[in-house]
């Protein structure tokens, strides 16, 4: 009994002396927002990269689906490893469901981005302006990934006709 008394007293004493303070509610709200932001950025990154590779190599159909699947696998395991016990999305249902939802989402969103003129616009912008990371990423400017840069025939074609041969 004495031991029990000591245990609770020891804890309460630390609290009363101000050695231990509870974190404010805003801390947990910000933590959740940060978590959602990281998930948003990861999914957006996967969508961008999947559509970028598809744009560069003109992938369509099942190859595109495979590509989206590969990015979904990467992103899902990264998110699951980091947040599987923090978000109900991950732990309330078997992982396979969350994985399929994420694959579908990445496939649909990257298809939309691929079909839109987004990458063409970024390509034109990256060609006109020397943007770090972006310009080297789009390499020769046609998105074909040939890495010939200025000597690439596709680029000359792009410069004169403002359209890529690929």
């Amino acid at each position, binding site marked *: 009994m004495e031991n029990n008394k000591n245990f609770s007293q020891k804890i309460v004493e630390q609290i009363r002396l101000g050695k231990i303070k*509870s974190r404010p509610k805003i801390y*947990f709200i910000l933590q959740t927002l940060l978590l959602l932001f990281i998930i948003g950025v990861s999914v957006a990154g996967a969508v961008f990269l999947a559509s970028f590779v598809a744009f560069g190599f003109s992938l369509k159909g099942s190859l595109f689906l495979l590509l989206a699947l590969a990015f979904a696998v990467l992103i899902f395991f990264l998110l699951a490893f980091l947040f599987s016990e923090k978000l109900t999305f991950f732990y309330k249902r078997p992982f396979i469901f969350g994985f399929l939802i994420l694959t579908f989402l990445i496939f649909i969103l990257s298809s939309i981005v691929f079909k839109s003129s987004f990458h063409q616009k970024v390509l034109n912008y990256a060609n006109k302006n020397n943007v770090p990371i972006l310009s080297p990423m789009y390499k020769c400017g046609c998105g074909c990934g040939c890495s010939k840069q200025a000597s690439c025939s596709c680029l000359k074609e792009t410069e004169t006709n403002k359209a890529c041969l690929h």
Partner: protein
Amino acid sequence: MNAVAYLTISDENLAVLTQKSDNNAFEFLVIRYEEKIKRYLSRMLNKADVEDISQNVFLKAFININSFNEKLKFSAWIYRIAHNEAVNHLKKRKTLPLFDFDIFLPHQSYIKQEVEDEATKTEIKNEIEACLEKITPKYKEIILLFYFEDFSYQQIADVLRIPQATVGVRLKRAREEVKKIYLKNYGE
């Protein structure tokens, strides 16, 4: 508020009072859960570590009290903290895997809680007590929560943060493991 009033308040309301800076309310929570948490941890860890880790559990509960949602069960919340502390301790000793693949696939047939009569439950409890040290940590925890803490599948799922059907699968495998160990050591 006097001591008698605190005694009649539910755990969830005591937690809400703690959120409103009522430290006495937290003291009552510590008194209510001290024995349960110590008992749970003592079956999971070495006896020598139990006192320190139990203390950490309550200190962490106080630090994170504002993350507690009053609509949920306080018991599941505090056992979740105890589980985390135990897992961190076991992982330091490398006795737990980093990832379990049984949470990946659906196990719909195990989602419904099995009903056992008292005699069967007591028999299984005795078998568990006899071979507790030899049970795999992953199964030991689930079996402790179900048979010794009387948690439902849903509550266990909330504590371990795994799908409810996975609780059913792990419990079934845990029972099988207990039976095997028990028969090996004590025969029929």
